[in-house]
């Protein structure tokens, strides 16, 4: 019986590339704990720049993992981000894949 090959991250087809980015992974992890979050809160938690944060959130939105709502509160614009059901599922699948890969790496 052939031994399973140890994979490097560049050869990991099971890891979702949309989630694998550090900031996107951090954002999804943060959003998984709250119902919805303001852009400013996400920025404070990740210490990311406005431009980078906006770009990564847009990628998550395009993938359907995050829903955006823009509104005005006391005449101030507020952007709220919420994790979608498919985002939650994608994160769960990612964690599962990560654990399997780590397990196989330890066993190999």
């Amino acid at each position, binding site marked *: 019986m052939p031994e399973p090959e140890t994979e490097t991250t560049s050869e990991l087809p099971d890891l979702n590339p949309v989630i694998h980015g550090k900031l996107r992974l951090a954002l999804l*992890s943060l959003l998984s704990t709250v119902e919805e979050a303001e852009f400013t809160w996400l920025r404070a938690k990740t210490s*990311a720049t406005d431009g980078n944060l906006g770009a990564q959130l847009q990628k998550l939105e395009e993938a359907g993992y995050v829903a955006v709502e823009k509104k005005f509160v006391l005449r101030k614009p507020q952007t709220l981000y919420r994790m979608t059901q498919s985002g939650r599922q994608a994160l769960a699948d990612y964690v599962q894949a990560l654990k399997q890969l780590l397990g196989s790496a330890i066993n190999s």
Partner: protein
Amino acid sequence: MTSDFEADDVARQELTARLSLIETMIAEGRQKTESWGWTFVLWGVAYVAAIVFGNLGAPIAEWTTFGHRALAWPVSMIAAMMLMFVYPALASRNKPSSPDTAIGRAIYSMWIAMGISMFLLLLASGNSGRLDQQLFVAIVASMLATTNAASSMILKWRQQGLCAIVWWATAVAACFCNVTQCTLVFLAAIFLCQIVFGAYGMISERKTMARKPGAVHA
């Protein structure tokens, strides 16, 4: 061969770092930046103020008697309630508001529901003349015990569980003590479970908030 091992090691480290990042961010998300310790102190001071104002010019034993001192409790409670809303609004100006979590909503729902029940029950029973001081303390203490106990179980916060035990003991003691003893027991419980516990909560929150999350880059 060596380079294969090195590549595997790098990959393993990267995967572990990703897993660690998820754990860190989940912990960050759950960490509330709101401060609640001060509310315990506020309500503790409000209870003491109500007792003191209810007793101006009267023996300490009569502080729940309805009459001209009857407004002491409703006024103190309403003032504390208003401060609860005004202070956070002023303090959170120009700061990102902390988002709702399921745990946070569960906790404040319990406290709000308990507050409404206590206010209505005490106001109605006081007005109907069916409330004496021991019963008053027993009701307040048991409601506070229940809410503190539920909150401590949700938050897995042992110190709050101890407060619940003190409140339960106060509720039971109120049924057996005379009026003066009952007042002293009530004041001791307020001091321990509201003022001391609140101050402890404020110190803990300050320590937690001082810990800043590391920067995450794409």
